[in-house]
């Protein structure tokens, strides 16, 4: 049995454990809600994280953590984590925590796969770095949106009140240089 075979066979259980690990960061009262409410619109966070890690699982197992394939799933999870109360070390811990889940599987009678585990872990390290990029992208987006809101409000109002004047398209500031 290869590591891939093992992970495909055990997918449902591992994804469930992984999801539970992600939820560990939330208080008990909230954890239950995120875990139990199955309606995707009543529980968008639970739904997106579950769907995101399930998709990520397939990318890890079948595509060697291919960055292009992983991107939408990382985004689905991290876009939410980036606006919650967590420092990046907690928001992104779920990628590295997957190592522990794999080790647990392998140590339960599949020690011969440890060589393959090493390779997987190297890929997961790359995935963790990619996750950091996604996280920073989300944070930068937040700051950008904040600046845009303020700029649009102020400039828009001034423009509409005829309090500012901009050169029209194609208009030259000095028509002829006679100096």
């Amino acid at each position, binding site marked *: 049995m290869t590591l891939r075979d093992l992970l495909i066979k055990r997918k449902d259980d591992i994804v469930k454990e992984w999801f539970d690990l992600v939820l*560990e*960061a*939330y*208080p*008990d*009262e*909230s*954890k239950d*809600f*995120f875990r139990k*409410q199955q*309606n*995707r*619109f*009543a*529980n*968008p*966070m639970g*739904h*997106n994280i579950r769907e995101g890690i399930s998709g990520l699982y397939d990318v890890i197992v079948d595509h060697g953590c291919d960055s292009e394939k992983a991107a939408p799933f990382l985004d689905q999870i991290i*876009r*939410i984590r980036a*606006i*919650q*109360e*967590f420092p990046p*070390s*907690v928001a992104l*811990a779920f990628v*590295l*925590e997957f*190592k*522990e889940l794999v*080790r647990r599987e392998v140590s339960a009678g599949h020690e011969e796969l440890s060589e393959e585990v090493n390779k997987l872990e190297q890929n997961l390290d790359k995935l963790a770095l990619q996750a950091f990029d996604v996280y920073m992208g989300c944070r930068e*987006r*937040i700051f950008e*949106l*904040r600046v*845009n*809101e*303020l700029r*649009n*409000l102020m400039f*828009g*109002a001034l*423009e*509409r*009140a*005829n*309090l500012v004047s901009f050169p029209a398209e194609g208009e030259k500031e000095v028509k002829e240089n006679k100096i």
Partner: protein
Amino acid sequence: MADIPKPEELAKIDHTPPETPWMETPTVFRDGMWCYGAKPQNIEAVGMPNPREWSPKDEDWKLPDNWKEIVLDGMKDRLGKFRSFKLFMDICVRCGACADKCHYFIGSGDPKNMPVLRAELLRSLYRKNFTLGGKLFGKLAGGRDLTMDVFKELWYYMFQCSECRRCSVFCPYGIDTAEITMMGRELINLLGCNIDWIQAPVANCYRTGNHLGIQPHAYVSMIEFFCDEIEDVTGVRVNPTFNRKGAEILFITPSGDVFADPGTYTAMGYLMLFHYLESMGLDITWSTYASEGGNFGFFTSHEMAKRLNAKMYAEAKRLGVKWILGGECGHMWRVVHQYMDTFNGPADFLEEPVSPITGTKFENAKSTKMVHICEFTADLIRHNKLNLDPSRNDNLVVTFHDSCNPSRGMGFFEEPRYVIKNVCNNFYEMPSNTIREETFCCGSGAGLNAGENLELRMRGGLPRANAVKHVHEKHGVNMLACICAIDRAALPTLMEYWVPDVEVTGVHELVGNALILEGEKKRTTDLRGEPLPGMEDIEDEDL
């Protein structure tokens, strides 16, 4: 030799939250979650207490020595004055039906954003100070003393409720959490601790008549700017009037429609509709004094809401109009529908509104004398009075976000949908548990649409954005319509973060695009200057 930790031990980060009961879990003020404190000049301008320079991040909030007494006396006063407040403090059985209905809780997982627990912050003070059980048994009976930390916690969470009332829909007792938040905010305001994003609009509105402090001449300039834009797009010059005595109808809309995109395009839609109806007998005026439909006093105190609301009736009386037509606004309509009549009514100097075009009597507005523009327009369409070309909106695939206040505050579901379906050919609903009375808030209501609390807004808006994303992926929805100025200000940012391909519009922008004006030139663009469907390659000079 010390044990070297194994890799799995190093990788293990303990991020389990503390397992203390909520009363013992201290509240930490996170940046991105709170708004700046009210500036002294904005407190002073409306004669409210304790103006001073302060920041919610400061250790010392510069409260008067007897601040506890002020809060508890204020609570006692309100418990006596508002029967609903007393009931809401007493009757909650903590069944938890509301717990997972709040968008801030759903987006954050913070238990203190469960409506039941947020209300409990105030209820614990009520129990300790106003019930025998609480006085005798304190914490055992769910009571706690008012300390500075408790007050700060109350402040932090009272400004994490957008008073949207979604939780109230699910409460078996009908407890209106928005009213609890209102009471909490009133108590906070007794100590001058409002947020400036609310206090500044209150002060501006009181002084100049609108949130941004736009003076009359600038207000007129802004609307004339729209007239120029409309002329560019349609070739027709519209000529609104201002402060015109003797007009039949006074039009009042949130100032967001005048100063903030994309509300400005909605304002153009109003102007075009009024111009269209002029020859059919519409006699309407704008006001540069009642230049604000919104009422941030409503997020401050009942008294302040009443003072700001009064200008609508005062201006209607001064101009001698028969009735008031109101624009697309959220909380304005909740104030009008549920409070205006008892705040400042009866408006017996006005007449029961009748559409001058169709003769329809708006009996639901018999008391307040104020009609929602979507209802007015829906009635026009129903009577076949508008010449519409919905294909001009064919580049749009539209969904409708029920704004909290018109939907839950006045049961206003069908009229905007009826209008949209008549001016657009592509309309798709979001899932049923995210619209109508179960609609999710934009995450920025009740004065929380500031810049400094953007993380809070993005969390609170997650459930709404998630539903939009669904119809975007399933049906290709690219336009989110709404009938609230705060929505129009807040949803574009929310969309840019969660669903970047979806834009935001007011309903009357869509009307403006579809409406065929008499004598108009062949239109090549919509009101935003974007090419109309099929006109992508046509330049103006080709026509």
